[in-house]
């Protein structure tokens, strides 16, 4: 997207920094230095974001449950994440006697490194893409796909039958929800005609009347796709109401049972990184990436828009955690296979219709919207009714 107004200084800041580095560093080492800077920047920014997300989560959950949350360490509890970090590092690291030592050690490391790799292809701003790949969306999900292996390693290496059972349950969940997650990405790829994240963001550029952005979430199929993506992302990152893999109060923390100290912290670091990366992907695919919502708001740098959208989604995750009760494993898999997957498949048909009727104008445009909305709402209502037939709305009987 080329805007008419010259880009502000803040917008061009990443480019200027890049130029500066190119002038200082010899050309033969340039690729190495720029990659190193990108890696350090991602580690620093998302490491800090992780630290403060844990604090924000505890604060928000506290407020939802009518209590103040952590407020003793530092002003407003701001030093709490660092206190937690120190506590986790100096805690004793206990490895069970019969554990598979190598795999027990490798599992959290693999999990965190894979979760960090996914950040490489997210377009954080107009000039702020760590790695530009032709098949970036595929890379993102390839890096995420191997997390299942790490969960299995954690459960099996602990040499504890509950850990192994829980790891199998976690795998069932991750595999079930990977399908709707990937299927909800396909419509965007179909319409944008590219797998590159920068291309997808560019396809959502521009505004109608300078006010209404061309984000995919504002179309009928995009709205449905975003909801499916969001639900599947909740499950993929083990967040409530799909937090069965961990389920500290009912299922003795699943595959994390035999982990303590910093390794335990690494699992949660990976969970937060994965959650942030998936939210970033959702912003890129459906919420227009770094695009500003209105034309006149473009004076705010693009990376701040990306950050604002990312934080909105993350707070939504926390809000949902504070609101919804946990599902049971059979309800969880049934919801994925009988509801989300068929809806995602029908959505593919809807987006094909949307694409084929691109030329319809005038009154036909209204018909196009009405039909697309019918394609989205109809199956949702019909399948939802069928799935909950005889059981919902539920009547609760309390003891007199």
């Amino acid at each position, binding site marked *: 997207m080329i805007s008419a107004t010259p880009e502000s200084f803040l917008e061009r800041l990443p480019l200027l920094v890049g130029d500066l580095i190119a002038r200082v560093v010899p050309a033969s080492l340039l690729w190495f230095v720029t990659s190193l800077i990108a890696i350090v920047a991602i580690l620093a920014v998302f490491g800090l974001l992780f630290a403060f997300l844990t604090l924000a989560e505890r604060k928000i959950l506290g407020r939802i449950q009518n209590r103040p949350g952590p407020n003793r360490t530092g002003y407003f509890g701001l030093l709490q994440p660092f206190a937690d970090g120190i506590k986790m590092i100096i805690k004793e690291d206990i490895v069970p006697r019969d554990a598979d030592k190598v*795999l027990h050690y490798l599992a959290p490391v693999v999990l965190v490194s894979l979760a960090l790799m996914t950040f490489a292809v997210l377009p954080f701003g107009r000039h702020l893409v760590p790695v530009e790949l*032709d098949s970036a969306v595929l890379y993102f999900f*390839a*890096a995420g*796909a*191997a997390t299942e292996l790490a969960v299995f390693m954690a459960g099996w290496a602990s*040499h504890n039958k509950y850990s192994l059972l829980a790891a199998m349950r976690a795998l069932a969940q991750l*595999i079930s929800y990977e399908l709707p997650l990937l299927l909800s990405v396909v419509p965007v790829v179909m319409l944008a005609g590219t797998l590159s994240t920068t291309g997808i963001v560019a396809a959502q550029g521009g505004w109608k009347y300078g006010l209404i952005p061309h984000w995919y979430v504002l179309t009928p199929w995009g709205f449905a796709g975003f909801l499916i993506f969001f639900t599947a992302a909740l499950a993929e990152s083990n967040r409530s109401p799909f937090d069965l893999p961990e389920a500290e109060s009912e299922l003795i923390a699943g595959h994390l049972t035999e982990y303590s100290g910093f390794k335990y912290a690494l699992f949660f670091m990976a969970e937060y990184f994965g959650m942030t990366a998936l939210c970033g992907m959702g912003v890129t695919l459906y919420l227009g990436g770094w695009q500003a919502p209105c034309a006149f708001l473009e004076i705010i740098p693009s990376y701040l828009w990306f950050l604002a959208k990312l934080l909105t989604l993350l707070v939504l995750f926390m809000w949902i955690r504070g609101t919804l009760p946990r599902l049971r494993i059979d309800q969880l898999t049934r919801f994925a296979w009988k509801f989300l997957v068929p809806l995602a498949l029908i959505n593919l048909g809807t987006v094909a219709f949307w694409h084929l009727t691109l030329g319809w104008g005038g009154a036909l445009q209204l018909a196009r919207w009405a039909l697309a909305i019918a394609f989205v709402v109809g199956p949702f209502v019909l399948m939802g009714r069928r799935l909950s037939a005889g*059981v919902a709305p539920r009547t609760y009987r309390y003891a007199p």
Partner: protein
Amino acid sequence: MTAILAFIALVMLGSAAAAMISRNLVHSALLLALSWLGTAGFYLWAGADFAAFAQVIVYVGAVSMVVLFAVLLTRQNPVGDVLVEPASRKRSTAALSVGACVAAVLSAAVMSSSFPPASVAAPTATVKQIGLELMGPYGAALLIVGVLLTVALLGAIVLAASEPERNPEDAP
């Protein structure tokens, strides 16, 4: 570039060899996944991004899970019973003869085929080109594979779904 290729080859072959030597079936399966990852690295080295990422999603993400589930579900005791007893002479001779046969067939095929000299410019296929090829000339093949996989999936569901009746209290 050759050093990187040598490293990738070392990872692939080394992990494959370690997978065969290992007495622990789960270790073997994980090492096999590492070998598949090495294959993806090789595709990346050769400049085929799409094939590399597809390899990771399909093999490291999905097929390794199938292998691990197969290993664990066919054991009596999933935790302790994944150790393989030392191979007998009969088994090692069988393995060696099968390996020799495969090596003979492969080397015969490699020897008999001619390799035209590579063109100066490396061919670069974008994802878009791959997609157009798959949807155009190879559309029928893609459809047939899709139908085959769907049939397999439905068959698996029919075999697995033997739940007699639903208790209304259990439904979501």
